């Protein structure tokens, strides 16, 4: 599993190139997240619209990614139904900033800047 990163409107957009975030990819995911975000101080949005399954280890990996930002927010966009369910049931939806999709995540940029 790879985490592709690009900067769009000053926002770092990270996109896992996998349909499933689970125990198998959790450690590598964290390493890639660290590498991608280390030298970046702006908003970080993870585009999860291509991820249709996440288990508890995958959720743990996203939480550990959040901790790597040391107090900054990790924003998530485009949660598919199973992924949204896992976040909601564990109340982790209250820990992350969650956007319906990438368009609204990027639109939130203006609101933040204002």
């Amino acid at each position, binding site marked *: 599993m790879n985490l592709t990163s690009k900067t769009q409107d000053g926002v770092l957009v990270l996109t896992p190139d996998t349909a499933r975030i689970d125990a198998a990819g959790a450690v590598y995911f964290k390493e890639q997240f660290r590498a991608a975000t280390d030298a970046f101080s702006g908003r970080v949005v993870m585009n999860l619209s291509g991820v249709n*399954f996440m288990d508890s280890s995958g959720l*743990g990996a996203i939480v550990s990614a*959040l901790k790597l930002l040391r107090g900054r927010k990790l924003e998530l966009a485009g949660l598919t139904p199973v992924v949204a369910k*896992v976040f909601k049931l564990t*109340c982790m939806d209250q820990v992350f900033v969650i956007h319906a999709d990438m368009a609204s995540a990027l639109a939130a940029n203006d609101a933040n800047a204002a």
Partner: protein
Amino acid sequence: MPTWPAHWPQMMPMQHNRSVKAQPAIGDLSAGPPVMRFQYETGKDCLGTVIENVSTAISETGLFSKQLCENAHVVVAEVINNIAEHSYQGKSGGPIQLSIDMSDNKIAVEALDFGMPMPQLAVPCGQRPNHAVPMASLPEGGFGWYLIHTLAPKPRYIRRGHTNILRFVVQDCDDHL
């Protein structure tokens, strides 16, 4: 579907299921079709294969709501993860048998494995990890059993000989939360 290697422990014959019937009824596997049975080995692609098989098997019946199907995916994935990680302690090649009984408009699941018993021969409790803590203390684990207990209340565990047997019925809704 993988074939059951001769060197693996023998599967329970059907009589086993009938003998289980005498116990408090949950996931009665002798009730007749549609019961789907899958066999797996722990390893790299195990979870992906399970999710694909289970999701196809359940949705093909056309009997269940989208929500119930999703709940089944989540619970089965956590059960398989626990077997791989704890029962077989991360070793590859551990046999798992998954039976899914879809009669009576329910999704009842039995998962068998031949690894280590559960601690205290009991299903671990499923407290929700506390999210209302400073960021550095946020839980990164402990979600698995919580998800199982929430989406498949009162799972039953039996250790019979060298076999772990876990049975549960997947809950249709999660809006009691």
